[in-house]
């Protein structure tokens, strides 16, 4: 059973459908108690950093506890960025600070947002990336994460510059792209993640 935190942002139906497709049971919830009890959490996210952090306020403690208990966690897109300390998008608002570092705007060397299908440069033998060399994933974002510790970057992607695409630290996984919108390769990532939670 995977618990998706519903904090008022994001396209939850797509993630639910994709998890169902890989044979996983899903619970979408706003209830703090359910989140505290969850074995596995997915933090989705579309929208602005500051607004998301405000909506996430009540769940912050439960998320941090979940991570400290070393239970599997997957952040998607903004759900990745929220793990960092702060973002240029909302300079006065603190992130979850689970992965120290900053989120900055993609430099205007090309069109922003970085929107479309791109490949990964896989740096680490990350369990959710198993069997996924040379695949394409669907990205749509205007900001990118710069973790302080480079070793948490499991994969990067190239869009004029090299950007973090997958973060991995212990049982915390996060993708800048949308696995639920990345065709069969994306489903494979979710399947790999679901396997970890069993």
């Amino acid at each position, binding site marked *: 059973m995977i618990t998706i935190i519903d904090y008022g942002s994001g396209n939850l*139906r*797509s993630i639910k459908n994709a998890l169902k497709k890989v044979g996983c049971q899903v619970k979408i919830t706003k209830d703090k108690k359910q989140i505290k009890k969850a074995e596995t959490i997915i933090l989705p996210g579309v*929208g602005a950093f500051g607004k998301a952090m405000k909506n996430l306020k009540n769940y912050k403690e439960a998320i941090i506890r979940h991570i400290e208990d070393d239970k599997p966690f997957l952040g998607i897109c903004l759900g990745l960025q929220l793990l960092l300390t702060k973002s240029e998008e909302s300079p006065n608002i603190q992130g979850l600070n689970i992965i120290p570092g900053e989120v900055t705007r993609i430099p205007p060397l090309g069109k922003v947002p970085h*929107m*479309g*299908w791109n*490949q990964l440069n896989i740096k680490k033998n990350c369990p959710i990336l198993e069997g996924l060399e040379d695949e394409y994933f669907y990205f749509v974002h205007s900001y990118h994460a710069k973790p302080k510790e480079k070793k948490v970057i499991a994969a990067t992607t190239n869009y004029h510059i090299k950007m973090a695409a997958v973060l991995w630290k212990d049982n915390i996984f996060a993708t800048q792209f949308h696995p639920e919108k990345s065709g069969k390769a994306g489903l494979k990532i979710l399947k790999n993640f679901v396997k970890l939670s069993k």
Partner: protein
Amino acid sequence: MLTKRIIPCLDCDLQVPHGRVVKGVEFKQIKYAGDPVELANRYYEDGADEIVFLDITASHERRETMIHVVEATTENVFVPICVGGGIRKPEDFVKMLKAGADKCSVNTAAIKNPELINEASEIVGSQACVVAIDAKRRYLENPRESDERFIVEVEDGYCWYECSIYGGREFTGIDAIEWAIECQERGAGEILLTSMDRDGTKKGYDIPLTRAVSENVDIPVIASGGVGEPEHMYEAFTSGKADAALAASIFHFNEYPIPTVKRYLKDKGISVRL
């Protein structure tokens, strides 16, 4: 490297239960192309990078039918879905996104009330807010410097491009390129650019139009209208500087299936997802 996107467009007539995909041939004859959900599934399996549903009836009463189409499609289709036609209020964006769509496109409603772009992009994010522009060439006898019009050199003279609304039935006097720039400033995340002169002709996209818009905005541009063969997509991506190419009939009637198109583009050096 970011790939160029190939996007099948499903024009949906929602006046029958579950809707049906249709394609107008030069605006007159209407050909029936299939069931929206089934076609979307086929294109997903074929490697479509994104799928556009366009409600050509664009009526508020059929909203529920479109929602069902999106819900049923996203159970098995895991690429971005864009819905256009009949989107008028920020709430319409929210409803479609809740049903599983990723983006909504607006044309008429945005021209009538440009604030809609600001409001919608504020609520659902720029990435979900696509502005569709239907542009028609207006040739000029004596092209002179003009502050009001963005003048483009085309193969047979000079023209500016006028925005049309209500599916091409009404003209607005608005300059399409200036409007595209304004849309970006207001928060649009993408421009779906259709050439009315080329739509249905199979003579190729309007390349000067595509290039003019693409060079003047910093958001992605989807070329649309007129594709008849894969080479036209190659032109749209190279001379036209488009980020994505939309097509309908070449896919519906199996003239050029998506894998054939992508293989052709890849062989010519275009970065595509295979």
